[in-house]
């Protein structure tokens, strides 16, 4: 599974929500095999404010058209610059990086995503479906504006929605969604989103005796295990999120079991 540096060409830049952009990019040579949960390190073209590359999950891969997509939430200078790029722009990316979700699971599986954590789940859902799985997918956000790519998810999964303000789906945090009452019926939960949400999902999964994998975000300088800046505390010591993650089984993460921390972090979806 070797990594490539590609000058991708942006074929399409659509805006599925006020703060989100999907960049569909053509690769200059045959796409390498990518796994759901892996990510890319993308250079922000000629930006004064983004010195380092920015990591983004692989949102979708279309081997037939040789395209790779990213779902990007506008949060700072780097992402805003990327969101404004016109089609035809060259985007330099290093990928596929990191380890993805474990795909050797019994079904049914529940995918849980919040905010830009939705990004890797589409590729994951599609891959699981391709392998014959029944996929359930719970997407949450502050408001309806954060729920993007729903039509795409509906094509591949049973979709459940929740918003904090009740503007779409059930009202509340993802862990308050009714599907969580049936959690014990799932064999595994795959989650990606803000840390507070992930911790709440991890705790609920533990309580229901369901195995849970989360994709972590983190400050990264290199994305390839060279700088050791992106560590997370695991039971085996500090580990690089970029090479040994970004997907971790929550059982391996240190400090992810205390209900107190979860309570502190929960509202920060």
């Amino acid at each position, binding site marked *: 599974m070797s990594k490539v*540096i590609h000058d991708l060409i942006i074929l399409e830049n659509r805006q599925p929500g006020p703060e989100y952009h999907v960049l569909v990019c053509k690769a200059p040579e045959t796409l390498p095999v990518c796994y759901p949960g892996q990510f890319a390190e993308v250079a922000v073209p000629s930006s004064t404010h983004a*010195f*380092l590359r920015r990591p983004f999950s692989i949102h979708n891969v279309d081997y037939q058209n040789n395209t790779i997509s990213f779902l990007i939430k506008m949060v700072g200078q780097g992402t805003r610059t990327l969101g404004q790029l016109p089609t035809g722009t060259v985007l330099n990316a290093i990928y596929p990086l990191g380890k993805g979700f474990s795909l050797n699971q019994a079904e049914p599986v529940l995918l849980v995503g919040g905010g830009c954590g939705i990004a890797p789940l589409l590729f994951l859902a599609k891959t699981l479906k391709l392998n014959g799985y029944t996929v359930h997918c719970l997407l949450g956000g502050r408001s309806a504006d954060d729920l993007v790519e729903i039509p795409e998810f509906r094509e591949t999964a049973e979709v459940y929605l929740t918003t904090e303000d009740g503007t779409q789906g059930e009202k509340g945090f993802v862990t308050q969604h009714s599907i969580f009452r049936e959690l014990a019926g799932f064999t595994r939960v795959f989650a990606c989103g803000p840390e507070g949400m992930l911790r709440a999902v991890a705790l609920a999964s533990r309580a229901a005796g369901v195995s849970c994998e989360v994709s972590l975000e983190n400050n990264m300088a290199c994305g390839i295990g060279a700088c*050791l800046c992106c560590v997370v*505390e695991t039971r085996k010591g500090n580990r690089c999120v970029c090479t040994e993650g970004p997907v971790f089984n929550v059982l391996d993460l240190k400090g992810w079991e205390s209900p107190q921390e979860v309570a502190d972090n929960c509202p920060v979806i």
Partner: protein
Amino acid sequence: MPDLSTTLHQLSLKNPVMTASGTFGYGKEFSDFIDLASLGGIIVKATTSEPREGNPYPRMAETASGMLNSVGLQNKGLDYFVKHIYPELQQINTHIIANVSGSTIEGYVEVAEKMAGLDHITAIELNISCPNVKQGGMAFGTSVTSALEVTRAVRKVYPKTLIVKLSPNVTSIVDIARAVADGGADVLSLINTLLAMAIDAEKRRPVLSTVTGGLSGPAVKPVALRMVWQVSKAVKLPVIGIGGICNATDAIEFFLAGASAIQVGTANFINPRVTTDIIKGIEDYLLRHNLQTVRELVGSI
């Protein structure tokens, strides 16, 4: 074809482009992108006598044309290095240089002594300039007496090429360079990172878990160039230039300032192929300027 080879004491390098410690892992992280054997040398990440977990997360902050890190010498320790990492390094057909770190003189000496026994490690770089550890590290590199002392102690046990890496966080880099030369260093490398800090104005707290960290990248290049120029004029040892090098032009500037070779650090994160580009760019420059060897440039301003 111009001749890119250069010499650092007993080391003959095929070209003057090396990678800086802590920014290139153990090389293999980059093997998908470049041919490691094409490099002049690889300075692998810091090794300490005992394993170290490094500092807590967050350890990185982006700054204007630069970054801060406070990794804190995370590594699996000397024994693990010898048993598990060294055999892999032996496969790489270029100079492999160990970056030797510690918090006590005994620690430095222990690592240096063990490294001396490893054939494929052709030199060590004594890191007396890491700003990210509580004890030792930069403390050794910011005082003339302790810089001299640690160099002398390591010299006693290390017969091969001894490079000492200087800290820029000093009033007079020349005084430290002279002390290290007196202590028996064969080569000087500079600069390590500048002690610096980042604050998150929204969260109203320091970005790094350690509050301060080390600044690297293009932002520091002008300071690094000045120090390389000062040291190479004042001290007769060969100098390796480090700090913010991103392209062949940057590298040439360091040669002109007096460096016999250079190390590329942070730029590897932005472009994992940058070292290959730099080697090619130096060749082009020499051709364009009608120069036969890179050595003609060294200190020629």
